[in-house]
């Protein structure tokens, strides 16, 4: 009992720490860990991850909001789409077989690894800490463009979040930054502000289905919360670029395991 608890909490700490250090959020590591190592069913793992995502988003966003980096109006507008997408995703997760969810998560891991390789920003620092991390409160003037593209991408991001239990920053931040003309720091902060609201939209659906297990969620959520706080605190001091290739390898390996499991093939040693 105590050993399982400690294992879950430690796993949460590690996932939260590296997730926030790499700017990916905790979900991308927590779900494969629960599913592959602890044998937690996919939907339950997603439910736990959603609550962890809410906790870390609240803790992280409070910093960004205070620094006035997040554009609350833009965030609220895009949340119209992310919350709807999240509800659709959450309901869909109840209908898809667990193998399909496992395969989809494997594909998401591949996409994440690809984004890291190509240095596409997930949370503003996926390829290494940005050079400009002085805590300047001056936000450059910008004009939001392509709002319809942003709303479409947000719906999709919400969908992924509700279906697979991740924050969806890996989709929103690049779209805000590359297509909508939002500065990277603002895009990152706004995405962080939105993630908790998006996750809450589907978390209650998982709750109502009874997918959330108290004794799994408790230690994991606490662990992720602590790990993410530490990770985001030292984020600016660590050369994440050194970690990049190691984690690309971890993501690819995990993706392979999830895909094999999803297709009911023999699972290799983990």
């Amino acid at each position, binding site marked *: 009992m105590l050993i399982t608890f400690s294992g879950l909490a430690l796993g949460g700490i590690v996932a939260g720490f590296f997730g926030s250090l790499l700017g990916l959020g905790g979900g991308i590591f927590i779900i494969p860990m629960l599913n592959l190592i602890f044998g937690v069913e996919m939907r339950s793992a997603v439910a736990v991850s959603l609550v962890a995502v809410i906790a870390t988003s609240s803790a992280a966003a409070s*910093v960004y909001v205070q620094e006035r980096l997040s554009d609350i*109006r833009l965030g*609220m507008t895009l949340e119209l789409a992310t919350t709807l997408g999240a509800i659709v995703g959450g309901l869909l997760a109840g209908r898809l077989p667990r193998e399909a969810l496992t395969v989809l998560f494997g594909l998401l891991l591949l996409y994440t690894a690809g984004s890291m390789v190509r240095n596409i920003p997930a949370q503003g620092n996926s390829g290494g800490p940005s050079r400009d991390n002085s805590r300047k409160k001056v936000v450059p003037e910008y004009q939001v463009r392509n709002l319809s593209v942003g709303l479409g991408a947000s719906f999709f991001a919400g969908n992924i979040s509700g279906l697979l239990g991740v924050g969806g920053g890996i989709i929103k931040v690049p779209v805000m930054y590359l297509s909508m003309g939002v500065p990277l720091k603002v895009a990152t902060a706004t995405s962080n502000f939105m993630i*908790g*609201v998006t996750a809450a939209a*589907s978390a*209650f*659906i998982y709750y109502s289905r009874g997918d959330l*297990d108290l004794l799994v969620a*408790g230690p994991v959520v606490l662990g992720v919360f602590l790990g993410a706080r530490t990770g985001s605190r030292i984020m600016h001091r660590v050369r994440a670029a050194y970690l990049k290739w190691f984690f690309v390898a971890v993501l690819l390996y995990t993706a392979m395991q999830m895909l094999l499991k999803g297709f009911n093939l023999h699972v290799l040693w983990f």
Partner: protein
Amino acid sequence: MPDIENTGQANIYISRVLLVGSGLGAGVIALGLLWFLLQPGNGNTLPAAPVTPFAQLADQLDHVGPLTVINLGLLLLMITPIVRVIIAVVSFFLERDRKYTLISLVVLAILLFSVRTALA
């Protein structure tokens, strides 16, 4: 986009709510886990402990156990983002910003629709 600085006061409230809500939730969960571990007679395997549906949660409040405490802590975390949206609604309203009051009201409605599924 309107000036971000205008929402300064709301920013501070939202930031506090987020911090207090997430910290409180985590604290309550930690207490519940500790209580659970201190109880005698725990086996070696983790028993399945699904969350309690809202309707039955009220009944449990008469005889609160460690699992109820963990459940409440998780709910506290889950509710934090909703409170955040409510504050946004109020602050946009006070700024007489009709467009964004309406937008955040719709977001709130979507969230409450989701909560309603848990009530059913």
